[in-house]
């Protein structure tokens, strides 16, 4: 459906349980639904807090779908798979 694939960025803050859960959940969902056509970048705001302002992050974890357009934001540890799929437009609402 999409040629360029998914460019996803996950913002976390250190190794908190929520961050670890989010990373694991994201990887699992992508493998299941977007195998081969996704790229994940994980940004630790603890290491680079200036990015929080620049990228308008308030909630942790935040997942941003940069590609395909339009930009989508999902907050939370991504434990609700249905909402993640809807939020990423992988599954129609």
């Amino acid at each position, binding site marked *: 459906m999409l040629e360029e694939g998914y460019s996803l960025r996950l913002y976390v803050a250190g190794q908190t349980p929520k961050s670890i859960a989010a990373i694991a*959940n994201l990887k699992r969902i992508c493998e299941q639904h977007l195998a081969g056509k996704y790229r994940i970048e994980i940004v630790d705001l603890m290491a680079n807090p200036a990015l929080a302002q620049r990228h*308008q992050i*308030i909630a942790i974890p935040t997942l941003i779908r940069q590609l395909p357009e339009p930009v989508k934001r999902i907050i939370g540890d991504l434990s609700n798979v249905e909402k993640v799929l809807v939020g990423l437009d992988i599954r129609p609402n």
Partner: protein
Amino acid sequence: MCVVLFMNSTKARAAALAIPAVEKCPTGIAGLDEITLGGLPKGRPTLLCGSAGCGKTLLAMTFLYNGAVNYDEPGVFIAFEERTEELIKNVGSLNYDLQKLIDQKKLALDYVHIDPSQIAEAGDYDLEGLFLRLGFAIDSVGAKRVVLDTIDVLFSGLKNHLILRSELRRLFGWLKDKGVTAIVTGERGDGTLTRHGLEEYVADCVILLDNRIEDQLSTRRLRLVKYRGSAHGTNEYPFIIDHAGIVVMPITSAGLAHDASSERVSSGIADLDAMLEGKGYFKGSCVLISGMPGSGKSTVAAHFANSICASGARCIYFAMEESPQQIIRNMRAVGLDLGKWVDRKLLKFSARRPNLYGLETHLAAMHRDVGDFDSHGVVVDPISALMSAGFAGDVHAMTLRLVDFLKTRGVTTLFTNLGLGSAETSTTQMRISSLMDTWLLLYNRESNGEHNRQLYVLKSRGMAHSNQIREFLLSSEGIKLREAYIGPEGGSTGSARLAQEAKEKSVQRLRQQEISRRSREADRRRLEISTQIAALQAQLEEDEILSRQAIESEDQLAADRLAMASTRQPTPSAKSTAKLSSKGKPRLVQK
């Protein structure tokens, strides 16, 4: 044992004395620091709530701006509603150059953008991102002050309020741990202080802003709802926001503790000073001039302003009905050049239409003007114009507070009051006459087809003032009061006075003529009598001469007779001859 107890008790007392009062962080906002007795609680968050448009953002920004500029306390402003560029522009209206402060690393702005339509929630989250941003901003400038404006936006942006509330609780705790003095703004709720119950989290200090409309005039008010650990003013205080910033007026706290000076201030009218013990008003007193239209109230007021400025002191003229230019022009006609005092910055006109804003705001603006200009004299012309901005009772209350404020500062104040009926009644309507120390009444009385001005000192506390009604003349050399004319038919003014004076003069002339006539007659009689005396004297002298001559001739006769007798020789018969001759001789003499 006793010693130990004693030591313990002194220790306890020392500890009691050392109990730290809540440390204050000055806002630098005139008035607010007075109400809070020093400022906001240092190192703690303060909730600033109010409905839209009541000045939350500007007040919060002023807190940061003053901190950065005046108290060397850098600040962080987290904006949830306005973009930073917009914010910089918006507060430019208060002459705050935020960009400069940002460049100097004294201020950090961060716009938190939340678009609910873009955000999906999938699972558990926290607001660590916000904490990180805030922490980063605080560290970047070494902030001591933080503003979060308006945090309610989070409630519309995030669906999971359970998480949000626990995170807010954590946020306020975190702010306290950071030791920053924070202002958190919140929207006013319906029947609650804030729509989302933020007061639940911020318990230390809550300030409520309000912008009420009464009779189409809005008045901003501020109230300190609570201030844990500190005494504070509890009333609603009016405040104003304009180009010069925010000023809160702690005026309701004014009391009756002002000093009473025995110094005098000239009224600017020599004749009026003469009626007031020759010295004029008391310094720091309140003078009311009431009269009908055209009775010369403004002119008396302008003389006062002129005299204050001429003594080198400053005076503010609050003009409610005329523009400054118009007043200056009009006063030139009576020989007063107010323009030169304006040029020398001794006189300041503050012209505002009474219905420009509500009474409270008028009062607040007057406070600020008097304070900023540090004036010694104030003219309010006319106070009755404020009736259109409020009810009589409100005007009374306002005047009361204004009077208290001015007296506390030792400012001599002159109010004019326009009365349409009799001056007394309309002044009592506002019930301000009792607040005044000196009350001058100006009449404009009709008689003989003309109106004549009269001035009367109805009261003047603490001095022996004249009780006369004096005729009041506006001349090109200013106001002159004519000597009271009290004739046999009472006092009179104008042409009646002239006529009366002429009549007096003619009567006097007649009397003088009569007197001179009488004195002339007396002179004449004196002359007449002295002439008579002279004539009688002459007659007397004549009589004396005649009688002397008669005596002399008698003596001569006697001598002659003797001589004749001696010439005859005596004979014996001579005796008879002698008898005969003696008989014959007297006959001869008798001839």
